[in-house]
C-alpha cells in the first residue's frame, strides 16, 4: 500500500443524475473517502486536547485547511490534502453533551482498544502493546496530511507545529511519517504485493465500477445521511448536523515482517517461480496483482494492470474449490465476491500508505519497523469493519476451513494452518508464522464540514 495514486478518475464531472435525497453534498464532505489524492508522502498526527477551549480553537482554524470533496472535484491543483477526524473521547473533550455522545454507536463509543477481543487482536497485537498513545482515552483527534512529495509534507509539518505551539493546551501524542516505496510505477506494500486493485465505486461520485466489481454502491454505505443499500437510514448521531456527511474511520498500523515473510517463501519454494507461487497462494493474486482465478499457473503482469480485466472474476462459479485461489487466501476473505451474502452491506473504502524503509531484495532482516498504516472508512463500524475483522479475517472456521486465519493480516501465533487445494491431494502448510503485527489502532468520526464547525463552536 504505497501512497502513490493515479490522478482523478476521468469520470469526475460525469456523475449520474441523482434524486435529491441521494445527491452528495460534496462541499460539506471531507475529500478523504470520496477521492484519493495523488500523494507520495503523508503524515498522521495524533492529538490530545488538554483544554476544551484550546481544542475548539485548534479545530476552528483547521477547518479552513480541510480539503473538501468539492475542492478535489473542481480540479484545482493542490499539493497537500488535509483531513481531520475525532475520537469519541475527543468530542467529549471538546464539550459535546452527554445526550449527543450517547447517540453514537456503541462500538465507536467503546473505541478500538476496547473492541480488541471482537477484532481478534491478541498476543503481540493486543492493545497493551500499542504505542503512541493510541489505546489511551487521551487520544482525541487525528490530522491526516497527504502531500505531493516529502518537501511539501515537511513544510506542512513545520507550519502545523508552529500553529500547535500557539494553541496552548494541545499535545501531539505521537506522529507517523509515510512515504511511498520504490518502484513508484504502481502502489504496493513492503511484501511487494500490488495494492488498490479492488475498491468500491460510490454511487453519485461519477466513479465507474471496474468490470467484475458489481454496480456502484449507495453512498449511505460510506457517508451518513444518505440512503444505503437497504434504503433510507435512521438512528444517526444527534444533533442532526452530526449525522450528515460524516463517516467512521478504523485506523490500523500494521507492521510487516518482511524478513520472516521472505524466509517463509524460501522455506516453501526451491526456485524463484515456486516462491512466487507460494506468495500468490497466500494473497490470491500474484505479487504483480494478477488474480490467480484468471491466471493460476503463471504470472501475467499485463493482466494485473489492466483495470478492465484485473477484477473481472468471481469465486463461486470460476473456482469453487479453490484450486486456483485458495479458500483461505487474503483476497478471498477480504472480498468473497459471489461466495458471501449481502456483499454490498460489507464494502469499505481503504486509504493509507506504507511507513518505514523498504527492505532491499536479498538483504537480511534489519530489525527496523516497516508496514502499512491505513484507514477503513464506512458508515457502520460494527457491520462493515468489525464484521470483516471478526469473520473474514480471524474466524478460524471461515469457509469451513477449521483452523485458519487470514495468512497476511489475520492474528497468527503459529497455531493456525493454510490449506492450498491441489489435485489429487491438497497441500497443508502447518503452523503459519505471523507476517504482520498490529502496532496500534483507533476509531475516529470523520465529520462533515458543518459538523466540524458545530463541534468547534460548542460552549
Amino acid at each position: 500500500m504505497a501512497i502513490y495514486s493515479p490522478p482523478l478518475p476521468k469520470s469526475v464531472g460525469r456523475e449520474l443524475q441523482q434524486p435529491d435525497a441521494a445527491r452528495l453534498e460534496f462541499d460539506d464532505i471531507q475529500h478523504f473517502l470520496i477521492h484519493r489524492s495523488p500523494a507520495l508522502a503523508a503524515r498522521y498526527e495524533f492529538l490530545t486536547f488538554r483544554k476544551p477551549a484550546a481544542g475548539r480553537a485548534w479545530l476552528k482554524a483547521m477547518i479552513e485547511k480541510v480539503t473538501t470533496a468539492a475542492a478535489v472535484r473542481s480540479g484545482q491543483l493542490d499539493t497537500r490534502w488535509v483531513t481531520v477526524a475525532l475520537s469519541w473521547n475527543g468530542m467529549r473533550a471538546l464539550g459535546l453533551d452527554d445526550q449527543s455522545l450517547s447517540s453514537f454507536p456503541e462500538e465507536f463509543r467503546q473505541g478500538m482498544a476496547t473492541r480488541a477481543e471482537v477484532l481478534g487482536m491478541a498476543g503481540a497485537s493486543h492493545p497493551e502493546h500499542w504505542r503512541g498513545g493510541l489505546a489511551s482515552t487521551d487520544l482525541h483527534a487525528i490530522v491526516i496530511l497527504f502531500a505531493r512529495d516529502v518537501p511539501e509534507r515537511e513544510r506542512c509539518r513545520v507550519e502545523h507545529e508552529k500553529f500547535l505551539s500557539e494553541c496552548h493546551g494541545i499535545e501531539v501524542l505521537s506522529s507517523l511519517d509515510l512515504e511511498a516505496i520504490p518502484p513508484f510505477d504502481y502502489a504496493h506494500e513492503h511484501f511487494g504485493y500490488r495494492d488498490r486493485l479492488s475498491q468500491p465505486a460510490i454511487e453519485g461520485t461519477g466513479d465507474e465500477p471496474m468490470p467484475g466489481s458489481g454496480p456502484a454502491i449507495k453512498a449511505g454505505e460510506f457517508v451518513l445521511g444518505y440512503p444505503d443499500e437497504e434504503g433510507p437510514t435512521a438512528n444517526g448521531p444527534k444533533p442532526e448536523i452530526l449525522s450528515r456527511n460524516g463517516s467512521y474511520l478504523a485506523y490500523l498500523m500494521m507492521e510487516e515482517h518482511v524478513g520472516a515473510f521472505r524466509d517463509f517463501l524460501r522455506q516453501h519454494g526451491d526456485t524463484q517461480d515456486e516462491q512466487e507461487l507460494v506468495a500468490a497462494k497466500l494473497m490470491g493474486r500474484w505479487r504483480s496483482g494478477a488474480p490467480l482465478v484468471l491466471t493460476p499457473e503463471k504470472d501475467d503482469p499485463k493482466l494485473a494492470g489492466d483495470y478492465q480485466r484485473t477484477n473481472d472474476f468471481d469465486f463461486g462459479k470460476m473456482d469453487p474449490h479453490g484450486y486456483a485461489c485458495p479458500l483461505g487466501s487474503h483476497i478471498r476473505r477480504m472480498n468473497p465476491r459471489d461466495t458471501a451474502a449481502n456483499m454490498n452491506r460489507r464494502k469499505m473504502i481503504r486509504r493509507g500508505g506504507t511507513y518505514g524503509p523498504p527492505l532491499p531484495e536479498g538483504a537480511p532482516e534489519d530489525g527496523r519497523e516497516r508496514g502499512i498504516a491505513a484507514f477503513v472508512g464506512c458508515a457502520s463500524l460494527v457491520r462493515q469493519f468489525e464484521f470483516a475483522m471478526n469473520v473474514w479475517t480471524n474466524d478460524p472456521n471461515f469457509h469451513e476451513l477449521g483452523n485458519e486465519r487470514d495468512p497476511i493480516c489475520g492474528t497468527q501465533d503459529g497455531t493456525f494452518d493454510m490449506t492450498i487445494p491441489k489435485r489429487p491431494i491438497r497441500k497443508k502448510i502447518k503452523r503459519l508464522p505471523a507476517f504482520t503485527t498490529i502496532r496500534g489502532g483507533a476509531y475516529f468520526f470523520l465529520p462533515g464540514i458543518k459538523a466540524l464547525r458545530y463541534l468547534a463552536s460548542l460552549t
Partner: protein
Amino acid sequence: MAATLVETPSTRIEKTRDWTKPAAMAIPKEGYFSLKNGRYGPLYPRTPACHGFTIIAKIKPGREETIRAYGKTIETAISDMPDALATLKLHYLRWVLFDIGKDTYFMYQGIFDTDFDKYTEDAVALFKKVGVNTVFENLEGFPEDWKTNVPAFVKFVREHQRPSFLEYGEYPYETADEIKKALQLKAKFSEMLDLMQ
C-alpha cells in the same frame, strides 16, 4: 483473548471429535464456559449439537392465528427459493406456540453451524426476505424500528435467548455441509455402481 482456543469442555471434546461416538455437554447457566465477546455480546460455544438458539417470547394478545399463518407463508417462500437461508448453515428450525396461564408464548429454535453473532446482519436481511422478522412484530417488546435498527433487533433476540444447559449429538459436531457431502457421495457411489453393471 488468546489466539489459541480456550480450553473448555467444548474445545476438549471438539479436538478429539469422532462422529461415531455420541457426545453430550453440560453447559453453565450463563450459556458459555468463558466469556468471549462477539460483535453484539457473548459468544455461545459450539456443542455436540452444533450452534443454536432458543428464543422464547410472549406474543401480543390475539395474535396466535396471525403467527400460525406465517407457517404457510414461510413454507411457500422456501419452496420458491430453496437456498434462501443458505448463509445461516442451518440444520433445523422449529417454531412452537404454547400457553402459560392465560398468555401464549412463541418458541423459535434453530440448530446451525455458524456462530449466530458473526452473521447477525445477514440473518436479519434473510429474515426480512422470507418474512421471519415480520412474525416477530407479533411479539411483545419487539422494537418497532427494527427495519433501520439492527442493534435493537439483535438486543431483542439476545434478551429472549434461553441457553441450553445440556446438548447432545448422536453424530457430534458434524456440519450440515459434511452431512450433505456424505449423502452426495453415497448417491454418486450408487450411480457409479449402476454404471458398472
